């Protein structure tokens, strides 16, 4: 049994609302925001902005490139996510 990230933690009400909206719209909890919002007090705003910038295309890459790169690294790590 793994840790249940959908409850507990120190997620403020607006993040709980955001997670619930994602689940209502997609039928699934979104792993990365679920993990990072579980304890938002531990993550500096600039750090979150950094990783989001990369995922939305920068440095001459577009979002499709970023998704390809992410899929490639997941493949190398044998990660199904």
């Amino acid at each position, binding site marked *: 049994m*793994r840790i249940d990230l959908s409850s507990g933690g120190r997620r403020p009400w607006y993040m709980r609302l955001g997670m619930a909206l994602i689940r209502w719209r997609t039928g699934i909890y979104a792993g990365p925001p679920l993990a990072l919002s579980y304890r938002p007090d*531990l993550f500096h705003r600039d750090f979150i902005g*950094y990783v989001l910038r990369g995922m939305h295309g920068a*440095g001459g890459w577009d979002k499709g490139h970023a998704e*390809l790169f992410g899929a490639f690294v997941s493949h190398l790590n044998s990660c199904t*996510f």
Partner: protein
Amino acid sequence: MLDDWTRADVPERTRAALRLLECMTLRPRELDAAFIGDLGDLGLDDAGMREAGNVGFHYNLINRVADAFAFPVPKGDQKSRLAAMLNLAGRLFKGTQAEPAWTRSPDGTIRPAEVERGREHFLSAPGETAPELRRAAEAFAAEKRGFPRPGTFSLPPELAPYLEKLALHAHRITDEDVSSLREAGYPDEKIYEITMAGSLGAALVGLEQLSRALFDRLSPPATPTDSATGRDAGTEPAGQ
């Protein structure tokens, strides 16, 4: 395509980025100035390396977290719905390139400035675990990937098997691994912090190698940033 990326029908610049990501993920020790010089010859400029490296770091981090926490894998149209919602959230919160781009930590490691701030915040913020334990977990995972952190760290031995698996073979983490930590006296809140610290350490080493190589090649030698004092802003590499 992902299996045979060296022969895939993609532009050379994209293939060079895949080569960079493979090196960051599997062989970070080989990521040096000569390696990025070769990538430059293939048409991958420094900004392209830096931002591909950003994605590589992000996924090396989140893959470990996903395996440790058993993230649900979206299926069918869940993927597109989820992507649309995360895209919206990302547009709202994504950051801009920091100035300066690079920061030198007190131990001399070069990292993107935002990452250095994030790492220091994560490792020093009040939490369910002591900051010393998070630092030890982060350092242990980095060491398992071949990059010992300077200094002395004291990691409780019962955490070592879990953190080693997290650093090297996160996809092999099982329910039993997590249960054994609970049985050793770690509540879920502590396991969460230890997992995030270990994932951070394991993921950072490739980004640190890339940052060092870019910084050394492109920056004037006299202006390292000291993240402890905030003095002497590091230099944005030329050609950005």
